């Protein structure tokens, strides 16, 4: 009976109900998007950092990994010290640089990583094998496309130019032995990886045992914070960054989006709340006579309140799934815009769907629906019956 009356009331004003549902759906979509934006970026980044099992990253003091061209000198002794530590399971030293591939009069330039293939955590092998010999490299699809080469082909590459000799410095031939997907590279960024020793030799310079970064995987059960503090004490030349510290840095740099999400989320919720409150109030005002009659024939006050709250909640609940679908579509569209940030890793999502986010949005909306219905319902159910009936009869 309660639900039948509520349904009848909503159906009586079809256009109004439809507009209300549409309005709440758009608010719900916006709310879901903002909930996804506020937490998605951080979760996505956390997933990316932990995807290969490394909990700590060591970079030159005062910098974040690959934030500058700075490198860690005397790195071999540092890596040896880390590997000798009982709490460490795996250490992956990484040297960043560029490789130039001559192509006619010009050259194709790609980001290059010098790695130890057995312990690396920077790429996933798609086809072929890791580059283990000095004349082998692995490349991603963007580089293979730019070079017009395939697995098994031989390419010439250099790590720099010698302006005086007008020649590529340290050029050598490489066999492409693997096709890979780099985890931290931006979409469309051409990249290649060669053994660490090879890239060091190609770059030359006075100090050859440099690295840009070392990634450390701890043994199970070892406290990340304790290990981080211990390494920071023992290795004053480097910054030891845990996943949570890196996330804090990212959060700080992208705080604008988090704050925007909070503000727009609050606005969406307020708009949805106001819309439902306005509709329910007007709807109740139109039916004060009907409500007075119900009260006169003995219908209890809480039942009238419940009917009106059910109406408000029904608008919210019908609109919510529509809003969630709309939110996912708009979220994907907005994500495709932000994915074009220069240098942003391809796998980072600003709008990451998490069931928790959807439930949060739904819960907030349902709460708003109930709250929006309570006040006008209670007010109308509290009107004096006789006076209201007389006013309605006189008009």
């Amino acid at each position, binding site marked *: 009976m309660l639900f039948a009356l509520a349904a009848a009331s909503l159906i009586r004003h079809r256009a109004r109900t439809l*507009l209300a549902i549409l309005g709440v759906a758009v608010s719900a*979509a916006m709310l879901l998007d903002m909930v996804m934006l506020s937490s998605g970026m951080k979760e996505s980044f956390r997933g990316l950092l932990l995807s290969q099992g490394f909990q700590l990253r060591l970079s030159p003091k005062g910098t974040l990994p690959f934030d500058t061209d700075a490198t860690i000198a005397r790195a071999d002794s540092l890596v040896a010290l880390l590997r000798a530590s009982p709490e460490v399971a795996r250490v992956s030293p990484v040297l960043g640089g560029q490789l130039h591939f001559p192509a006619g009069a010009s050259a194709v330039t790609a980001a290059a990583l010098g790695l130890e293939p057995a312990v690396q955590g920077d790429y996933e092998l798609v086809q072929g094998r890791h580059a283990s010999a000095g004349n082998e490299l692995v490349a991603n699809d963007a580089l293979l496309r730019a070079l017009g080469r395939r697995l098994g082909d031989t390419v010439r590459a250099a790590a720099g130019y010698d302006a005086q000799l007008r020649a590529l410095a340290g050029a050598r031939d490489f066999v492409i032995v693997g096709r890979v997907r780099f985890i931290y590279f931006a979409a469309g960024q051409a990249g290649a990886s060669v053994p660490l020793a090879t890239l060091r030799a190609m770059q030359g310079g006075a100090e050859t045992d440099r690295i840009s970064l070392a990634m450390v995987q701890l043994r199970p059960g070892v406290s990340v914070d304790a290990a981080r503090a211990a390494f920071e004490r023992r290795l004053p030349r480097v910054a030891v960054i845990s996943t949570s510290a890196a996330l804090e840095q990212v959060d700080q740099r992208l705080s604008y989006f988090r704050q925007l999400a909070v503000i727009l989320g609050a606005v969406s919720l307020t708009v949805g709340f106001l*819309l439902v409150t306005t509709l329910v109030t007007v709807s109740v005002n139109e039916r004060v006579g009907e409500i007075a009659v119900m009260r006169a024939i003995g219908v209890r006050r809480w039942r009238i309140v419940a009917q009106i709250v059910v109406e408000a909640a029904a608008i919210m609940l019908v609109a919510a799934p529509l809003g969630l679908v709309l939110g996912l579509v708009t979220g994907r569209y907005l994500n495709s815009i932000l994915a074009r940030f*220069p240098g942003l890793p391809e796998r980072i999502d600003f709008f990451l769907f998490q069931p928790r986010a959807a439930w949060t949005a739904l819960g907030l909306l349902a709460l708003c629906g109930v709250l929006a219905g309570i006040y006008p319902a209670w007010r109308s159910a509290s009107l004096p019956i006789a006076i209201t009936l007389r006013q309605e009869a006189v008009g």
Partner: protein
Amino acid sequence: MIIQLALLAGALSTFQGGAAAPDRPTPRQARTIAIDSRLAADAGLRVGDRVVLAASPGEPGDSAVVSAIVRRGADPAEIARSEYRVRLHLTQLQQLTGYGDRVDRFAVATRADSAIGPAMERINDAAFGFRAHRSRDIAVETSQTFAVVSRFHKAIGVITVFASAIFLLCIMLLKVEERRRDVAALRLMGISARTIVGSIVLEAAAIAVLGSIAGVGIGAAVSWFVNLHYRAVYRTPLSFSVLTGDTVVLAVGLSLVLGIVAGWLAARRLVRTPPLVLFGR
């Protein structure tokens, strides 16, 4: 006190700050450096203070005197970066970081704009291993981040306008529905449907204009607060939100159009209903 700095060359330096000791003779004249105002504020440094610069922690380094404190430029590309900045003489930085006789880039000023193209051609013909770029092209490239943010804002704006349109339509529909009896009485008195629709549309337009004026006021206040907040957060003189005449005209125009359309749709629906039905008979 030791502070790590990422210098322009990309090398790392440590910075040991302290008060100047003018009464103690120095073995040679110390070089001068300029530091940014954030570093000066955070490290408590003033012009004339003596500091020690080193490429890595623990290295002996080289002493220098703070000769200037510079205000951070309004560069959007640096907005989210929190590093301190120190400007050194080129040779001093090369020596300090072991960079040798190398630089990251040259800035070249031509005598006239017309000379830029030929100068670039000559440089690129002669150069090997580096390329000349127009400053304008570099500016476009480095502002990509903000082009993306701008596109994002536009998309959010479109969604907001859509949501506002539905909200406005709902409100106007309800407002007009409240006048069922008035409209029925007017129709029974012989007032034409056109006149009734016109009066409701006028009312809708007036509400839209008043709402827009209030909205512009709220927008200006929010814009002021946004600038105040983010300038403090990022410690920059940049303007994050700018309320321009075009924005006001667009917002008021859009609101007026939406209000009129919503009022017209609601009024048309009402005048098409027979007066007695509107009376509930």
